[in-house]
């Protein structure tokens, strides 16, 4: 009898509001799920892009019987035709070389300039540099790439045409446009890297009697090296993936050029030019998707390199 009474009492206590699940908890749980779904959606989109580009890009080699060796070493690009072995003519070497050339050269030009500017802004004239250079650089990061292409087309190409033999279109024009385009990005990343070097290191170096330049190149640059590498690689990734600005100034001839002032082409320029003129599912179209796959893999390689380079960064 006593036990039954106890039970009844306990049941009553269980109905007390403190024992009830609050509505707030349910809202919170729903909220957590919705936010998780948005994260998952973003990740799923990436996975979908990777899957689609891989499956379309590999079709050239699987369903159209293209040769991987031809793709990377051949110099003739005519996917509609087949060669004497009955395989489509898909030599992409000129585009690959073109892309690598403009990317490498523009990194060589804008890397030192950007690092120099970053040193200036953080070590030589921090106040003036911040007040004048920073807003300008932030503005330039935002300038659309077509505007860079347009300036290249209406200023750089005519200039090169007057100074050097040839039409002005070519690797040189592409390199100049890309160097200017990635300069602000690399500068702001390099500035981050240099500014994250602890102040105490600089003070220690100066206290040992080194000059400002010795302090900069032996202490600051050495410590910031991983970050600076990251900045330059990030710029290269942008340069490699840039499509329209390069396409406007490079001339788009699918041959390996003999000089910097002859028309050339890059992976992205051929993609932009060709995609609209081919029919889905045909060899011509699949070959273009293979180029897109190359672009994707290169961007993955750049991302991984940035991550690896960033490992040794001081934070």
């Amino acid at each position, binding site marked *: 009898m006593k036990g039954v009474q106890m039970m009844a009492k306990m049941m009553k206590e269980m109905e007390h509001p403190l024992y009830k699940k609050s509505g707030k908890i349910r809202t919170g749980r729903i909220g957590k799920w919705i936010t998780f779904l948005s994260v998952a959606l973003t990740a799923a*989109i990436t996975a979908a892009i990777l899957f689609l580009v891989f499956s379309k890009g590999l079709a050239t080699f699987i369903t159209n019987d293209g040769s991987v060796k031809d793709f990377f070493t051949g110099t003739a690009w005519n996917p509609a035709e087949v060669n004497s072995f009955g395989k489509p003519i898909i030599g992409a070497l000129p585009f690959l070389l073109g892309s690598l050339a403009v990317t490498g050269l523009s990194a060589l030009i804008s890397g030192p300039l950007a690092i120099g500017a970053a040193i200036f802004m953080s070590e030589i004239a921090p106040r003036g540099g911040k007040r004048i250079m920073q807003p300008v650089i932030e503005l330039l990061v935002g300038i*659309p790439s077509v505007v860079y292409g*347009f300036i290249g087309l209406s200023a750089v190409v005519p200039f090169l045409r007057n100074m050097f033999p040839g039409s002005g279109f070519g690797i040189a024009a592409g390199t100049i446009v890309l160097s200017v385009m990635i300069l602000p990005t690399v500068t702001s990343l390099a500035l981050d890297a240099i500014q994250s070097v602890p102040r105490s290191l600089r003070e220690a170096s100066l206290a040992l009697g080194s000059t400002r330049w010795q302090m900069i190149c032996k202490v600051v640059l050495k410590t910031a090296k991983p970050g600076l590498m990251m900045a330059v690689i990030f710029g290269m990734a942008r340069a490699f993936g840039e499509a329209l600005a390069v396409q406007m100034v490079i001339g788009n001839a699918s041959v390996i050029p003999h000089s910097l002032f002859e028309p050339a082409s890059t992976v992205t320029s051929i*993609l932009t030019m060709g995609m609209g003129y081919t029919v889905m599912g045909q060899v011509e179209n699949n070959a273009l998707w293979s180029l897109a796959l190359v672009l994707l893999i290169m961007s993955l390689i750049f991302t991984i390199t940035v991550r690896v380079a960033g490992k040794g960064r001081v934070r």
Partner: protein
Amino acid sequence: MSAKMKDQLATAGLYCIVGIIITILAGLLGFVFVRGIPQLSWQFITSPPQVFKEGGGVGPQLFNSFYLLVLTLMISIPIAIGAGIYLAEYAKDHWTIRCIRVLIEVLSSLPSIVVGLFGFLFFVLYMDWGFSILSGAFTLSVFNLPLLVRVVEQSITNVPKSQREAGWALGFSSWETITTIVLPAALPGIVTGVILASGRVFGEAAALIYTAGMSTPIIDFTNWNPLSATSPLNPFRPAETMAVHIWKINGEGIMPDAAAVSDGAAALLIISILFFNITSRIIGSLLCKKMSAN
């Protein structure tokens, strides 16, 4: 050479580098403005482009750019805020979360033309929306998402822990704390980031040429019924934006004043980006003042 001389030489070299950079940048902006601003007139900004004659404008292109931007933000902001909240507040250091973070980082580093090709395949062909504003807006959202997610996550992480503790101490559930305390406190950072991202979306072209298309049908700016074919709001019509227009007329423009039109359009584009930059600064500091005690 003594260390002192080296120091002076290096300083001189750095001044040179900065001089070169400032000259390039000033030349760049000067070039666009000096050539472009004389082309700008009310007639240029509002009238439709001409194919064979002189005197065309960029009215529809300007409208398309803004309309695409608005749609893109409407799609990407809610998803980015959700994802940012999860990553900042709930995500633990688990391998699935690390995997997702890597995927988002990969998405942010993909070249925009690859995102455009994905949009072409998925939205234009598979969903069968054709070259349309809708395809363009979804593609641009994909392009915009990783950046926005990072901005939201960063802004939320920057809110001090004491604010959350204050919320819990008042008896708020963690979800209430997030929505009524943390999110408003993070708002200035989020708004600034969104406006800066808008500038990027506004100038994007490579992702749009195969999704929103390279043409604009004749549209009637007095017809605001979104279902009508000639309405500017119709999401299923192709829409060429300003950036795409600049690219196209430089490649294949046959009107006699193609150069003048692209000069004007480039200046207009840069002025818009400047506008986004300045508003983001002003709104950011205003919101910061309003939301915080100082």
